[in-house]
């Protein structure tokens, strides 16, 4: 009886398969629609959904209306926005690409993903369309930015332009220094002595003082800009390109930098729970509660509205003052800081798109300074007022139909990552205007963060070993730093050698070798 039943099930399934596969064929036939270029077209464009409560419909608001009323009318097209959740953008993009459902214009910040798509033949080649329709666009971006979208010598992505290249800053409690009669530290030694003075004299009279606030970030484990004070200033380009990579473990004198942090830890100068504070929330709390004397964070960290560390600190401890300082001088008395590379997100057009030309025309339209200004600031006289050539927001874009879910509407104005007024100096002033109440502080912080700025080395070939081992090596680095910083000072040397050799065998060597190989290929050595 069982056999019989099984047989009938098999027959049923076989029939099902045939029926389904036939219906699949039918579907394909009816799907192809051909349109002439003059007909009305629909261009689909990705937009990040940041889930901000109160945000307008991302496909129907003030900004999308502007785009459709201007670009849409001019090119006889409807621009449709496809929302992609910000935190899951890569997963979602992968699914959309795999199912040939990706919008005509998609984007991501992740170079590895773009490279994967290129390797798998998923992206449209843009050279000829850029030549034909993208004159304003190529002029705006320039070769320095466009080269980031070139893979195997062909343009597969249009990189956005980053206007704020600053990354980190070191901040210190100016009111504490003043109380002790100390100047701003300008070297690593001075910084150390200041931390000792904070600990011993406790100028803020707080319980549980933390002279140097530190959180071991699990996504980007590192010791901030401290290593710049130890890194030799005479590295060759090849050394720089291949050694300052992969969590810096191969960088000459990195061990000394780690030792410096270890010394601070053993002298009780560092946040005791730094290793478990993976998201930095504890550090934010300690800064806000006025326990922390100095810390390294994003160049504008304390001034940001979220989490709002400086504003909280001022409420909790009246009279507290935080200023950026520049203590990490190297052997050439410079204060080098690696910033962002000049490209923003990678804008890509899937090969399945039938609107490659229209997509480039759209980006070309967007690169027009008039449209950039509108998309980033709104309507003059209503949403902003021009003061000395700098748009000053009136606050209308914080809520309702005009709400920008990210400053300067980066999610609609894809080409400029950060305010773009066509002039670096104007941009700097405009950036500071985005932090109400801290304008001069921010201007100063930006200046310090960009002192002796250098760009990450540009590789035209992505490192596939890095893509493979990155997650494992990042987590390993986090553990290594935690172990090394909390070790006995006498043990650091041997432990460092042991851990780094482990790191190298677990993928670090492969990553390094590929950097060396890529560097040589790129420079024809």
């Amino acid at each position: 009886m069982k056999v019989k039943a099984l047989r009938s099930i098999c027959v049923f399934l076989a029939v099902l398969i045939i029926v389904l596969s036939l219906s699949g064929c039918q579907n394909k036939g009816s799907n192809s629609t051909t349109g002439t270029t003059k007909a009305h077209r629909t261009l689909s464009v990705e937009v990040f959904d940041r889930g901000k409560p109160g945000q307008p419909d991302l496909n129907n608001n003030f900004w999308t209306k502007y785009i459709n009323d201007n670009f849409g009318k001019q090119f006889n097209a409807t621009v449709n926005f496809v929302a992609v959740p910000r935190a899951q953008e890569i997963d979602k993009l992968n699914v959309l690409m795999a199912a040939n459902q990706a919008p005509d214009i998609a984007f991501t910040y992740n170079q590895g993903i773009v490279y994967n798509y290129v390797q798998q033949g998923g992206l449209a080649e843009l050279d000829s369309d850029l030549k034909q329709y993208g004159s304003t666009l190529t002029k705006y971006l320039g070769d320095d930015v466009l080269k980031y979208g070139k893979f195997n010598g062909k343009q597969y992505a249009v990189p956005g332009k980053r206007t704020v290249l600053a990354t980190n800053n070191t901040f210190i409690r100016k009111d504490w220094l003043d109380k002790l009669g100390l100047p701003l530290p300008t070297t690593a030694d001075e910084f150390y002595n200041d931390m000792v003075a904070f600990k011993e004299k406790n100028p803020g009279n707080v319980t549980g003082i933390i002279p140097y606030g530190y959180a071991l970030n699990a996504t980007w484990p590192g010791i901030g800009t401290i290593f710049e004070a130890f890194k030799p200033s005479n590295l060759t380009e090849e050394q720089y390109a291949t050694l300052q990579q992969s969590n810096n473990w191969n960088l000459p004198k990195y061990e000394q930098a780690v030792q410096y942090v270890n010394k601070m830890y053993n002298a009780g100068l560092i946040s005791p729970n730094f290793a478990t504070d993976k998201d930095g929330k504890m550090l934010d709390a300690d800064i806000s509660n006025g326990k922390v004397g100095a810390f390294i964070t994003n160049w504008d960290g304390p001034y940001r509205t979220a989490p709002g560390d400086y504003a909280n600190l001022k409420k909790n401890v009246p009279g507290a003052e935080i200023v950026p300082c520049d203590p990490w001088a190297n052997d050439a008395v410079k204060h080098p800081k690696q910033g962002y590379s000049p490209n923003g997100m990678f804008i890509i057009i899937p090969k399945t798109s039938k609107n490659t030309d229209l997509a480039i025309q759209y980006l070309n339209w967007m690169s027009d300074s008039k449209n950039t200004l509108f998309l980033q600031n709104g309507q003059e006289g209503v949403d902003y007022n021009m003061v000395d050539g700098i748009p000053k927001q009136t606050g209308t874009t914080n809520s309702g139909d005009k709400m920008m879910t990210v400053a300067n509407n980066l999610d609609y104005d894809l080409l400029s990552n950060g305010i773009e007024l066509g002039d670096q100096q104007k941009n700097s002033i405009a950036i500071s205007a985005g932090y109400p109440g801290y304008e001069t502080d921010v201007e100063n912080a930006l200046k310090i963060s960009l002192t002796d700025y250098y760009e990450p080395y540009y590789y035209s070939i992505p490192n596939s070993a890095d893509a493979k081992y990155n997650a494992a090596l990042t987590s390993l680095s986090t553990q290594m730093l935690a172990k090394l910083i909390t070790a006995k000072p006498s043990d650091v040397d041997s432990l460092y050698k042991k851990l780094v050799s482990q790191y190298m065998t677990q993928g670090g060597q492969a990553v390094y070798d590929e950097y060396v190989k890529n560097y040589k290929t790129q420079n024809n050595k």
Partner: protein
Amino acid sequence: MSPKIQNKIFDYVVALIVLIAVFVCLVPFLYIFSESLSSNRAIISQAVTVYPIDFNIEAYKVVFGDAGMLYSLFYTAVLTLAFVLVSMTVTILASYPLTKKRLKGRNAILLLMLVTMYFTGGLIPDYMLVKNLGLLNTPFALVLPGMMSVYYMIIMKSFFQNLPESLEEAAYLDGCNDLQILFKIVLPLSKPALATISLLYAVFRWNYFQDALFYITKQNLYTIQLKLYNVINITQQLPGENANVNLPSEALKAASIVFGTVPILLVYPWLQKYFVSGIMIGAVKG
């Protein structure tokens, strides 16, 4: 000590332990609730514990002022209800026949179903299937693919199996057909199981958001959990962005969580009676 007093002491000790356990379970809820009513300064400074500091209801004003959130809540409630109805129908109609020895090949059918518990097609094949069925960006994409859980179906089946067979035989002799037996005899006797499984389905649909994440791009079809997920996950600077991002405040996140969690919590007390007896389903094999 007399045994009576000893018993009393024992009771008090047990009550105390249970009370502590209850409190431990309650603390996270209290914490989120008080965060939602506190100022951003107090939250970031980690001053908030189980009661609000700098009491204010600004966050709730934003959440309730957001028509999209209210709409999503209502939409998710309707979706959940529809999902439970469909799921229960399918589950009952699948599990009941499988308890009958008369059904030829029932073991093979069960085996086919079991296979799906251990092997899945994976994300992209699932997506292609849903796409080819034309379900993308429709509420059906959130109902049909997950409408039957084999696991719950098996629980249901073992409950049905435990019902005395003689009851059904009696009904059969009185002239009931199979459907009548199911609806008039079996189901009324299975209320605890029905309530429990319904609740499990409802909680699943209410809390699950991954399918909505991939199948839905229209904002008016977002479930409340997907919205919450978006709000909560934008916690810090994301790779590549280097701007004063207009992040939702911690209080706003907490208020959104309360907003999305309370409705499903309110369902529990009404079903509790069934739920307690339902937990024992399948525990003892007759």
